[in-house]
Each structure stands twice: as structure tokens, then as C-alpha cells.
């Protein structure tokens, strides 16, 4: 799981252009959205949906599912490990 969490952090930094942020700066328990944590917004959420499908073969039909899955890196990694197809 630790390996997946680190990989996920690197992927998110790259795909969301989080300049000046390193994997170790991201608290895996902190919220991804909102003022706390990484402060991502709705376009970032859509980009994370693409990341899930492209890198892990998980297709989310309803963007609202993302609200639960993208709560934090830990929640996201847990969901990926249980549902990934690649």
C-alpha cells in the first residue's frame, strides 16, 4: 500500500501541475479538496477521474462518486487497490 500511495502522490502532482509540491509534502490523510490540504477544485476532480481510468482501469460513470473516493490519498489508494483492473 505504501508503494501505491507514493505512486499516486507522484501521479497527482504531475497530472494536476502541482508545482513546488513534493510527495512528502502531501499528508495522505488530509482532504484533497477545499481550503485545507491540497485545495483542489472541480476540474481537478474530473482530471482525477481520467487518471483512475487511464492508470488503473477504473471507470467512474458518475462524477459524484468522486466526492467519496477523492477524500484523501489514503481513501483513494484503498479504493484503487480494491477495484483496479490494471
Amino acid at each position, binding site marked *: 500500500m505504501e508503494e501505491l500511495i507514493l505512486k499516486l502522490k507522484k501521479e497527482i502532482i504531475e*497530472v*494536476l*501541475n*502541482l*508545482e*513546488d509540491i513534493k510527495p512528502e509534502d502531501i499528508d495522505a490523510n488530509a482532504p484533497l479538496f477545499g481550503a485545507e490540504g491540497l485545495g483542489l*477544485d*472541480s*476540474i*481537478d476532480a*474530473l*482530471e482525477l*477521474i*481520467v487518471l483512475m*481510468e*487511464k492508470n488503473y482501469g477504473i471507470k467512474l460513470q458518475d*462524477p459524484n462518486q468522486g466526492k467519496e473516493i477523492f477524500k484523501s490519498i489514503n481513501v483513494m489508494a484503498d479504493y484503487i487497490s480494491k477495484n483496479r483492473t490494471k
Partner: protein
Amino acid sequence: MVIKLADNIYSPLGATTWENYQAVMAGKSALHQYTLPDGSLYTASLFPEEERRDDGYTFFEQLCIASASDAIARAGIDAASQRVQFILSTTKGNVHLLAKGESERALLGTSAAVICRHFGNPNPPIVVSNACISGLSAQIVAMRSIEAGLCDTAIVIGCDVQSEFIISGFQCLHALSPDPCRPFDKDRCGLNLGEAAATIIYGKGKEGWVAEAGAMCNDANHISGPSRTGEGSYRCLQALDIDKEQLAFVSVHGTSTLYNDEMESIAIDRAGLAEVPMFSLKGIYGHTMGAAGVLETILSMQAVEHGIVFGTRGYHELGVSRQVNICAYHCSTNKHSFVKLLSGFGGCNAAMKFSYNTSIDHTNTITYDPSIGTISSIRISPTADELVELYRTNIGDYPKFFKMDPLSRLGFVATELLLKQCSKADYGILLFNRSSSLADDIAFQVTIKDRSNWFPSPALFVYTLPNIVTGEIAIRNHFQTETNFMVLDAPRANIMAAQIAIAAQYGPQIAGWCDVDANGNYLAALVAVPQHTAKETIEQELNKILK
């Protein structure tokens, strides 16, 4: 006063305004269901595949020419006259050509020049590319250009054609409905795309349809999400000075997305117009993007002339938080004015008010302040890396900068540097360029190039509109007035200065050239213009910084 001389709608439902009006009255629609490469379904109003040919003129240009030809013939004007100005309203023009590696003809200014040449017009055309409000922005530009004496007649052509580029983009934003859309309905689940060309010709006169007033306001909230308070649309409606007793209806945007329709209901309620009948035409035509503002204005004029308020196809039960008066079915009216409302990506909103045979003179007077002799300006032409360095050295407190596309980064940094020299104000933003959003368009095209690796990027797609840079600047600075974007075939100081001076009639402007070309050449040459600055003052400064 500025009046309508003639019009045309060329859509899958008919080749003239009259054919389209009859089709709408008969409850027809050209919406059909199609499949995307990933197997997902979408519904759209498209021309038949066999008509979609690029020979000589592209399909997009053929539609523009067919629509404009009919309107010009009806107006009985000489389109080749020097006193006639062509204004093209489009978001993506020939963007489908990028898939074939053709970037020059994909440029909006190049395509507009081809259309203009067809009619023998000697003036460089102006392309208004202001996301989904382009059709109203273009009509506002036409109205003001005639009022300011820049031309006697303005031919406004609104057109967009659909392609995998656009459809996959909206699909990755999860904005498309697989079924016919249902504006304002409780079960609405997204929009349908559409394609059409529509032309409206304006000139000076005293009778007929009068373009009374127009307003554009930015939400300064988000580049793709509508304001939760309907701020920009509300401000537009306020600016029109509406007497609701005179209004037959409000012809709303009504895209059928969850957030747009909710936003519009809030804006209309806040403006005190909740009781006024309203309708959306998206359930018939889909969202025709650059054509929407023109097409929906023309049909609304037809409705008033025939004493009709259109029904909203697909609407059954109110699904927005405010008790607005959505017409489900066609009904009658004896009133002679209406408002057309639109909103779009980049946080932009626009509204116009039209009246039929009004006795009140609505000519707006133009006043220049000769005491404004000098204006602030800036010119930067960095490489991509130098631009990042400029940001880090001079700004550094806006991490969102790194999420922006090259054009937005350039406009953002240039504006930040310019504002350091200027007094604070609620500036309008009017930017021009040649390449539109080409750098980002090419980047997005890469994500849909390979069928086995087909992952259209939402973060890239939202920047495939040039006016997003104006939204980014508005958000950063909380500018909530006009934002507009025009594409020209080259940096022409005289045309830019004339349009900036007109915009500056309504408030101070941050304006000028902001371009990133296909080879990665960056150039921003901006001026900060106080209200009522004269064209000559602006042109003088632009000539200095554009060289």
C-alpha cells in the same frame, strides 16, 4: 437607432429563418443519439454526414457563407462596401483540421478572412470568440460599432460545427446528456451539442427590430463553473434597465446542465423577473455554441412578431430552486420586447434587450475625454521558461498559475505587471490575438489522437477557449464587468484601438494583444485605459508596444 436589416438561420431544421420558425412551431427537433469512441452515448443536432465535406471551403465556412448569402440578399446591401463590417462569432471554427495536422486554416482569423473574401469585402473581419456568449458579444460589438460610426452596416455570422474535438471535451467534463436534454427540468442531466449558422445584419434606421441595449459581466468566480449567486447574469440584467411589464419573455441560455439552469433561475429571480415567461431552445437545436446567441435572438424576434412565447422542449417539472416561469408549451403574448441571456466558460455572461417598433430613441451617445493624453502599457515577449521566471520573481503567490495554459499564463503575468503601474479599478478586459487558444488546442488534440489510448483531458479542454485568460484575470482581480476576446488575422492597432475605445465608453479597460503561436512565441502588449479614452490615444500607445 441600430436596427435589424435582415437575418437567416441555416440549421439541420431548415435553410431559412422562416423554415426554422415553422419547424420550432411544429415541435420538430434534429436531435439524434450518437456514440463516442469509448462507447458512451450522446445526443446532438447535427447536419447529415454526406453534407460534411471540406472542398475548397471547409464545411464550417460553407455554412457561414450559405447563411450570410441569404441574409445579405434579403437585406439588399452591397456586402463588398467599405462601410460594411463582417463580425464572425465562433468558438472553435475549423478546429477539426488539427486532427489532419492543418493548423493555419484552423485559425479563426484565417477562416474569417476566407469568408469575408468570398463576399468581396475589403475590411479585415473581426472574430468574437467569447465562449458560449460569443453570439451576444458579437451583436453588442456590432451595435456599438455602428453607434460609434465605425461602419454603417454590420454582418454578424454565428457558427460552430461539431467534431470529435468538441464532443470528447464536453464528454470528459461529464456535461453531455445521452438523451434529449431537459432544460430546467428536475430530471435534467446535461446538455446536447448542436451545429448551425445564423446571420443577423444590423444598420441604422427607425423602424423594425431595435437592438436597444447590451451588457456583459464576468462572475469572477470560476473558469468553468457558473456563479452560485448568478452574479454576472444578474448584473447584466440589472444593466439593461428592464421594465418587466414590457417584456414578452426572457429567452434564456437553458443548457440543461445542473448548474447553468440553477444559476440562471437565481439571476432571473434576483433581477425581479421570476414572473416573466421564459424558454430555452436547447431541446430543439442543442447548444450551437458560437451560433447560439444569434440563432436564438432571431427566433425570439420571430416569436414576438407572431405573438408567441415558445415552449421549452424537454421541460416538464421545475427542477431549479427559484420559482421561475418556464413555458412548457407555446403560448401567446401581445408584448413587443424581449431579453436574450447567455453565459459561458471563463465566467462570462451577456444579455441584450430588443424591441419591435419602439417609439423611444435608444441611440447611445459616445463621449471621449481629450484630457487623457497618456496611458499605461506593458510589452513582454518571454519564452515559456522566462514567463515562469517572471511569475516567480514578480508575483509568486498564486499557485493556480501553474495549472493555466500558456495563453492564460501570458495574459495573467502581463496584467499583473501592468496593474503595478495603474490605479485600482473594476477593469473590463478586452484581449485580441491571432492564434486563439491554439497551443492548448494542440495539447488537447494529443489526448484524443490515439483510439487505443483515448483519454481526453478535462484540464486541457477548459482552456481550449481563448477567453479563458480573461476569466483568469477577472478571478484574480475580482473584476466583474465586461470581458471579451477577439481574434484578428494580425495585430492591427487601428481596429484594436477602435474596439477598445468603444469598450472604454462603459468603463476602464485592460486591453490589447495576447498571443501564443504554434511555435511557442509569446507576445503580450497591453494597455490600461481609463473610461472615455479616445481611440487616437490608444492607437498611439498600441503602435509603440506592438512594434
